[in-house]
């Protein structure tokens, strides 16, 4: 038994080392460049602390807003029988996987106050409200309704029942949702770049401007390190907090606890879901409408313009070619991400005891943000030993590292929950180890891998943070081209940008709905 485990570990070691090197190398470069005496002037500059403060401020506002708007909807969707529940949930969750620059552009054209903190916060809520609903609702739906009934029978009014009984029971889910939204909004890049005030950068935007516009690679690396430390601290604090908040309770079946809305409050909550879903759909629809608005009325002029290049301008690269390139890169990134993700997942499962550590390493890109991955790979080429500039694989590699945590998150719970007895049964029926594995876990593993691949493709297609650092001038991806077009004056540039954004949006939605369709129903995860 022991020898089998040792052999497993050895067998897993080599490919795992490859994954570890690929994942850790960019981070190591950031540490190598950012760690040292050069960091001091950056760390002591008041402007640095202003940037950190502002980043925290907007992230806190966005988190509070997302949770506040999510709570009533989570209640309605997970405690009540709302007609069309799956559709509302789908609509509310779509924004989470949309390309950030597309969302930034949609709000830039829709809101009367672009270039403000309010605009950033609104876009962040748009992104994260669905995620918050799912995280909070998945616990709420399982709460034993009898506890609340006891509260009512003791004469507590509904509000007090909620405050004294429901809220403490929900605390673990609320804090989990809060920390997720906080992480996403703290490291948000594309939205802030497109929608924010240039005089008020967040850490991510400042890393980008320092590296790409002011050529201050050291300062960029220092800020990336600062951000990493803050994010790591937040994760540690949250895990301590979630241990404390955890309430030992018997959970019910969510299908059973749901009931038809009766009281006025329940009806209002149901109506609220519809209002929220409409509010989430409006920016996406308005982008489509905006792309059809041309100088003299309505039409497909911007789409026609997107097909043909205009010499000597930013549009000398046709918008359509950037979309094809994005698809090519996303395809390559998906292959890399799935390859690395399968190895990493297998490794985590094989080396169970050390799995937690490995789990953390693979999740690193999520914690260190896409911008840090991009900066790390750039530093690797400019200051480090491996020059990847000009290689086609550079951009897909960055995208794959950003998508990797999602692939692992999809694969891990599914494979973890497979029953080892299935394999034993296959073995007793005379199957070899590989065949036994395939018979027992093959179909579900293949499906989970396909779902992981689809999510990796969707993420890579809209990826902007890492790509912005790595993309070559002559071969922009669609999100990069959108941002370039927005940086130029003139109606045609914005028009083509919106047309391109709509096409990107459609592609992403198609990929993700395919993923939703093939998603295995057991195992959970995201």
């Amino acid at each position, binding site marked *: 038994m022991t020898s089998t485990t040792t052999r497993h570990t050895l067998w897993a070691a080599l490919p795992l080392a490859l994954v570890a090197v690929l994942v850790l190398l960019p981070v190591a470069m950031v540490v190598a460049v950012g760690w040292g005496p050069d960091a001091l002037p950056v760390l002591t*500059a008041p402007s640095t602390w202003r940037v950190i403060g502002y980043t925290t401020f907007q992230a806190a506002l966005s988190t509070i807003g997302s949770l506040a708007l999510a709570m009533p909807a989570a209640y309605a969707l997970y405690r009540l029988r709302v007609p069309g529940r799956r559709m509302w949930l789908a609509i509310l969750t779509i924004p989470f996987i949309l390309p950030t620059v597309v969302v930034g552009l949609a709000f830039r054209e829709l809101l009367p106050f672009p270039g403000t903190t309010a605009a950033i916060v609104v876009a962040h809520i748009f992104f994260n409200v669905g995620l918050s609903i799912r995280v909070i609702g998945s616990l709420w739906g399982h709460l034993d309704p009898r506890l609340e009934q006891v509260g009512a029978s003791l004469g507590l009014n509904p509000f007090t029942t909620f405050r004294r009984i429901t809220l403490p029971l929900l605390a673990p889910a609320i804090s989990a949702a809060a920390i997720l939204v906080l992480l996403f909004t703290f490291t948000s890049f594309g939205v802030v770049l497109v929608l924010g005030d*240039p005089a008020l950068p967040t850490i991510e935007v400042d890393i980008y401007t320092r590296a790409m*516009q*002011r050529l201050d690679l050291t300062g960029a690396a220092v800020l990336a390190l600062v951000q990493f430390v803050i994010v790591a601290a937040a994760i540690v604090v949250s895990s301590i907090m979630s241990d404390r908040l955890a309430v030992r309770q018997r959970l019910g079946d969510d299908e059973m606890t749901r009931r038809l809305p009766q009281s006025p409050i329940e009806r209002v909550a149901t109506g609220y879901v519809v209002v929220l879903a409409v509010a989430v759909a409006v920016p996406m629809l308005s982008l489509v409408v905006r792309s059809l608005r041309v100088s003299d009325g309505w039409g497909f002029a911007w789409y026609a313009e997107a097909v043909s290049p205009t010499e000597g301008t930013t549009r000398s690269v046709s918008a359509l070619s950037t979309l094809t390139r994005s698809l090519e890169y996303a395809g390559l990134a998906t292959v890399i991400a799935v390859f690395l993700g399968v190895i990493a997942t297998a490794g985590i499962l094989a080396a169970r005891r050390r799995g937690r550590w490995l789990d953390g390493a693979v999740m690193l890109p999520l914690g260190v943000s896409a911008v840090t991955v991009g900066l790390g790979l*750039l530093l690797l080429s400019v200051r480090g030993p491996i*020059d990847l500039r000009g290689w086609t694989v550079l951009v897909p590699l960055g995208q794959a590292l950003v998508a990797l945590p999602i692939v692992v998150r999809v694969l891990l719970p599914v494979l973890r929950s497979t029953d080892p007895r299935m394999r034993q049964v296959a073995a007793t029926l005379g199957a070899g180890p590989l065949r036994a594995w395939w018979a027992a876990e093959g179909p579900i593993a293949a499906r989970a891998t396909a779902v992981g691949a689809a999510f990796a493709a969707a993420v890579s297609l809209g990826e902007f943070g890492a790509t912005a650092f790595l993309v070559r*001038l*002559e071969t922009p991806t669609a999100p990069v081209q959108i941002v*370039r077009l927005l*940086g130029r004056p003139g109606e045609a540039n914005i028009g083509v940008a919106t047309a391109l954004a709509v096409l990107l949006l459609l592609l992403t939605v198609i990929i993700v709905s395919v993923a939703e369709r093939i998603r295995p129903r057991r195992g959970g995860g995201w």
Partner: protein
Amino acid sequence: MRIFTLGVAAAALALTACSSPNTTGAQSSAAADSSSSAALQNATVRVLTHDSFALSQSVIDDFTAETGIAVEFIPAGDAGEMVNRAVLSVGAPEADVLYGVDTTLLTRAVEAGVFAPYTSPDAGALRPELANLGVGVVTPIDDGDVCINVDDVWFADNGIVPPATLDELLDPAYRGLLVVENPATSSPGLAFLLGTIARYREGGDGVTESWIDYWAGLRDNDVLIVNGWSEAYYTEFTGGGGGGDRPLVVSYSTSPPAEIIYAEGTPPDRPSTSTMLDSCYRQVEFAGVLAGSDQPEAAQRVIDWLISPQVQADVPLSMFVFPARADTPLPDVFAEFVTRPQVPLELPADVIAAQRDRWIEEWTQIVLR
């Protein structure tokens, strides 16, 4: 196939013959010329440039017809952004030639090793005051003055006397009227910052002690900062046609004639904007061959072409800058509506190289706090 091989052999022979002194010199050198231009035939030289680049298509077509070299211009954002891209891709360049690096950024690019040294045989034809700039590495192509532009119509309508000096911009009467580009991201923005430093540095002749105080004063007088020139001029400036509300903008001394050339319908007799000469900073733009280009020879021909009389004559009205080549005729609108400052603000290249990044950092902390 055999004929082709023979042809190559003959060309090679001709080349060797050319390097040895013999009587058939004239004939061999003609053969060498044709073989060399055969190598350049079908070459496509990629020119990295800023977004403000423009040249008449006919001028470009003539060059291609003459030499067989196709030229592709790749806009890479503002001049600062473009130079940073070139620095980050040293050794693996994204193009063969870089056009549009200016005096404020030249040292950054040269020190990073962006350029392969080249001196055009035509460099002697440049204006004498430009001839000693970038020697041996890059070639001056044009120059211009970054100045505050004034919307005279707005000031007349509002019954305010427009400011005439940098000092006067601190006057509360001009509160909230000025829009400036961010020097970290914009070349004219950086030029204007350098201009104020040239004026208000320790030992300068201004009323404030240092440039830092000057900018604190501008900030307190509600200066607006935007990322790039287009946004400043077309969106925020009252005279740019974009419905802005700031009648003072950092732009070029050639913006007023541009207004006439680009006017829709009947052009006005004279521009509605003017330049504040006290604020002008001289900016020279250079072109160079990018180190690591795999077709340096064709790239060098493009540099020669950029200072040829034909391109130089086209430069004023396509990019609204002054040609670097001496004796290039200027269009009428330039002669009529552009005043070049007698003594423009300037800083030595080595001072800029040593201090620029610190200045931008300090500026960021004062103005964008």
